[in-house]
């Protein structure tokens, strides 16, 4: 640990004193990593991909030699590779692997001095965190607009604005973007910014890998959105992409299969990075039992990601092979097994629910403890329950398949494990409530979102109990009840905590304060709009409205119109958020280093933090939530090092 620290100090000294390398001139600019090189390498790799296809088809005598759909499939791999190579994602490793001398690290790719530094390969975890967050918010807005189109179509029964293929595409792309391009990477973005700071580390363990994993993300997002442009329309088999329907879909389906690979690779690399950072780069004195709960949450989430994500990658490869190479993984007429898809898919996609929820638990714990001015209640049990959810999360996947036709005996065990997950989740909710009890609660915007999360997540959790009970699930599965449930969990849960996190760390990230009045307005519009939109869906589902339909029975017309109007209000509330962010980032008042009087390490440095986070390495002497304990400290800096005896005993 100390070695790393010393090393980084030396680098920093170099970075300060060595003049940055002069920008390349003339033709050399074409060879330097960046957008210019991407501009010619992307077409080059397009040529390589298309050339390979044509060559093989010509050699084998397959006609037509130029087949658009085959070339498109191959290009979904080669085009992004060309772009990544051009922008410089692989430079260091290519030099290393080919035996060329690697460039000595001069930290010219570290930190941001102008807005341009956000648009290139940057190895600073703080820049990458902001790249993540801005990118994911862009895709959040796009996915939200798709939902608005969907609600417009659903305002009346029958077909009004779009045809069936487009409608199926709307909800498929909406869900895929929200899950793979918003919720999962937005948490990765917040984690990227905050985790190294919380640990007292100068950066993530693998900064170059970190940069690469970010740049995979826009590729995945653009791939999903651009599927609207291909012949046959966007992927339209739902984000679940169930075989055998997906196998018989038009070309757009391949865009989903491949986009998931890129987004999944990004997730896995980030998760590995988090794991190694958390295990090896904690500041002196930062034992596991002194880590903030957000770090614990990211630790468990990262374990989930590395173990589970390969399964969805596999499931999508199988679908793509069935579509493109005419394999028979899911073709029952040739010995394939359609249910196999669902087992593999949900073996990832149920843990994915926790991937989308555990970081939110972490954020809520940070915000609630700081803003109630009390230690988090039952810290160790909070961390242990995260681990319990991690382990149990792998044993419940088939509760998505109670009516799917799988072995009937599997239903009761899967119900029991699903029910048991309510126990650690309940522990967390009750502990948050106990943290509030007798606190000195300050209702800043992050706290409003955190409390909104707790209350909405309780509703989502309770409707989850209904869905875990097999007989009720048989009645409600694949209906709007499920739509309501997942939105209470992923909107009321994940999105509310993402908002809480963005507002909470906005002063740290930008060095500016956000507008508190606009923040509160945003919360109340979102909270009310959310409930008006999604609560009535419970009733629709139980009464008989299936999900994923553009047309529905006339008796549901009035309520659907109401939901559509409410959803437009909910969509509009996002404008308040965007306006607040842009306005405050540019014109907001300067933020103090620690506006929330928090004890965790990221607030003990300036806002925004120095390029390498800490001018001196903090010494961690106690747990992070000792509010109300006289003289308690979480971290101290060299100048004021205290003796270990003075630390507050862990409860």
């Amino acid at each position, binding site marked *: 640990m100390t070695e790393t620290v010393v090393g980084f100090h030396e680098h920093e000294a170099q970075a300060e004193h060595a003049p940055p390398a002069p920008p390349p001139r003339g033709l050399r600019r074409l060879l330097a990593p960046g957008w210019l090189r991407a501009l010619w390498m992307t077409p080059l790799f397009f040529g390589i991909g298309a050339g390979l296809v044509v060559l093989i088809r010509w050699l084998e005598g397959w006609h037509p030699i130029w087949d658009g759909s085959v070339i498109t499939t191959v290009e979904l791999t080669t085009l992004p590779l060309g772009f990544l190579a051009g922008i410089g994602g692989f430079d260091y490793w290519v030099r290393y692997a080919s035996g060329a001398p690697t460039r000595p690290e001069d930290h010219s790719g570290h930190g941001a001095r102008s807005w341009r530094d956000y648009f290139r390969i940057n190895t600073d975890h703080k820049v990458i965190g902001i790249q993540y967050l801005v990118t994911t918010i862009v895709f959040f807005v796009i996915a939200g607009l798709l939902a608005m189109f969907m609600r417009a179509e659903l305002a009346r029964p029958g077909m009004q604005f779009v045809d069936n293929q487009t409608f199926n595409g709307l909800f498929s792309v909406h869900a895929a973007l929200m899950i793979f391009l918003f919720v999962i990477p937005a948490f990765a973005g917040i984690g990227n910014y905050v985790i190294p700071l919380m640990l007292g580390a100068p950066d993530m363990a693998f900064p170059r890998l970190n940069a690469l994993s970010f740049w995979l993300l826009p590729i995945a997002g653009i791939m999903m959105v651009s599927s609207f442009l291909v012949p046959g329309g966007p992927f339209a088999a739902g984000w679940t992409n169930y075989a055998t329907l997906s196998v018989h879909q038009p070309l757009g389906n391949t865009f989903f299969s491949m986009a998931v690979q890129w987004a999944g690779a990004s997730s896995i690399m980030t998760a590995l990075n988090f794991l190694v950072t958390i295990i090896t780069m904690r500041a002196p004195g930062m034992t596991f039992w002194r880590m903030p709960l957000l770090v614990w949450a990211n630790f468990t989430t990262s374990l989930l990601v590395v173990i589970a994500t390969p399964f969805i990658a596999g499931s999508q490869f199988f679908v793509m092979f069935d579509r493109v190479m005419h394999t028979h993984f899911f073709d029952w007429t040739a010995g394939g097994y359609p249910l196999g898809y669902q087992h593999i898919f949900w073996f990832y996609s149920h843990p994915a629910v926790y991937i989308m929820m555990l970081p939110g638990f972490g954020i809520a714990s940070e915000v609630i403890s700081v803003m109630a001015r009390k230690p988090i209640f039952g810290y160790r049990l909070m961390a242990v329950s995260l681990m319990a959810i991690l382990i149990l999360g792998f044993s419940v996947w088939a509760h998505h398949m109670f009516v799917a*036709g799988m072995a009937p005996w599997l239903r009761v065990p899967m119900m029991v494990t699903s029910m048991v997950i309510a126990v650690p989740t*309940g522990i967390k909710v009750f502990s948050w409530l106990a943290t509030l009890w007798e606190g000195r*609660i300050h209702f800043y915007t992050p706290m409003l979102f955190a409390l909104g999360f707790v209350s909405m997540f309780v509703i989502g959790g309770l409707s989850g109990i209904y869905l875990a009970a097999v007989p009720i699930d048989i009645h409600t599965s694949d209906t709007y009840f499920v739509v309501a449930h997942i939105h209470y969990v992923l909107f009321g849960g994940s999105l509310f905590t993402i908002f809480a996190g963005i507002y909470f760390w906005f002063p740290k990230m930008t060095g500016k304060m956000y507008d508190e009045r606009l923040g509160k307005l945003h919360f109340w519009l979102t909270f009310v709009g959310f409930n008006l939109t999604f609560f009535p869906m419970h009733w629709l589902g139980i*009464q008989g409205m299936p999900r994923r339909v553009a047309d529905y029975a006339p008796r549901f017309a009035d309520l659907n119109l109401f939901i559509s109007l409410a959803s437009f209000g909910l969509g509009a509330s996002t404008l308040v958020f965007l306006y607040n962010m842009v306005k405050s980032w540019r014109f907001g008042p300067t933020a103090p280093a620690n506006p929330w009087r928090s004890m965790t390490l990221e607030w003990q440095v300036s806002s925004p933090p120095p390029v390498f986070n800490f001018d001196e390495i903090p010494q961690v002497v106690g747990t992070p939530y000792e509010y*109300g304990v006289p003289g308690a400290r979480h971290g101290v800096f060299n100048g004021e090092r205290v003796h270990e005896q003075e630390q507050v005993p862990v409860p």
Partner: protein
Amino acid sequence: MRRGSIVQLVLLGVLFGGGAAAVALLIPWLPDPASEQADRIDFVFWFVTTICIAIFALVAAVIVYSLLKFRARPDDDSDGPPTHGHTGLEIVWTAVPAVLVTAISIVSAVVLARNDHLPQASAAGARDPLKPLIVKVTAQQFAWLFTYPAYGNATSSTLRLPLHVPVDLKLKSLDVIHSFWVPEFGQKQDAVPGLDTHVVVTPKRLGTFPVICTELCGLGHAVMRSWTTVMPRADFLTWANKQKSAAGGGASGSATASGKTVFVNNGCNGCHTFEPAGASGTVGPDLDKLPALARKAGKPLDAFIRQSIVDPSAYVEPGYPNAMPGTFASLPKEQLDALVKYLSGGKG
């Protein structure tokens, strides 16, 4: 805790519990059950709802009480009491939910077993043709077909069931995954290609209820609906025997297979508009305009229709997706002939 605050907390809990109970009771949440299975599902629903209302009331009361009582003034820089935990309390809120979910699991498992149970014909009732009744449900894009093996494999595009008779619905799919659901029956089951699935329903109320496909199955998923009619036992037997003789006649002299029957039984109406059959689907081309379509494709009408049924991808009308299943290639020749004749305007 002072006694006053306990009283206030309990009052809030009662308030929220009462509010949630009112929402649960005053809004008719569940469809009026039409099967014995739905009754049992409703029981689980109310069992879970009772527990959920209690938990919701507790959580809401604590949150709201905290918001009202522990709000800090803006200039208040003090911290709360440094409570780190309470082992007893933590054991309680681990154990109580564990007990509750165990109870829900047991109730659910019992109900599941009873809902899955298919009473077999006893020795005494062995001659009763209706105990249990087997109906084969064939799902395909985007139509349902119901076959009654006990009645000469008579087929129907709506599901007719006798009152108070347990029915074993045996599902199969010809193309992609579909899901059979009648909200009033409470029972749902996917139809998976290559897999035999089944579900048990015992109707207990006369009436006509919607049959809905709940698994996304393609372009016409939203319109993949049909109806089920629960009839008095005697009426059902009359109907079924009539179908049996009709089907029997059809089987021996299939030349008489009506084009319209083939059209409806294969679910063509799910996607196509065709006035003689009263069909108004909009997923695929309007079949009332077939002559014009054939001219556009440059083919004789009969050959065009036949090709479009057997090999739908060979020519796809511009503006429409290439979405028609290829499964109709396996129609028996007589039925295909009748269908082509029917669609070309000749009386099938």
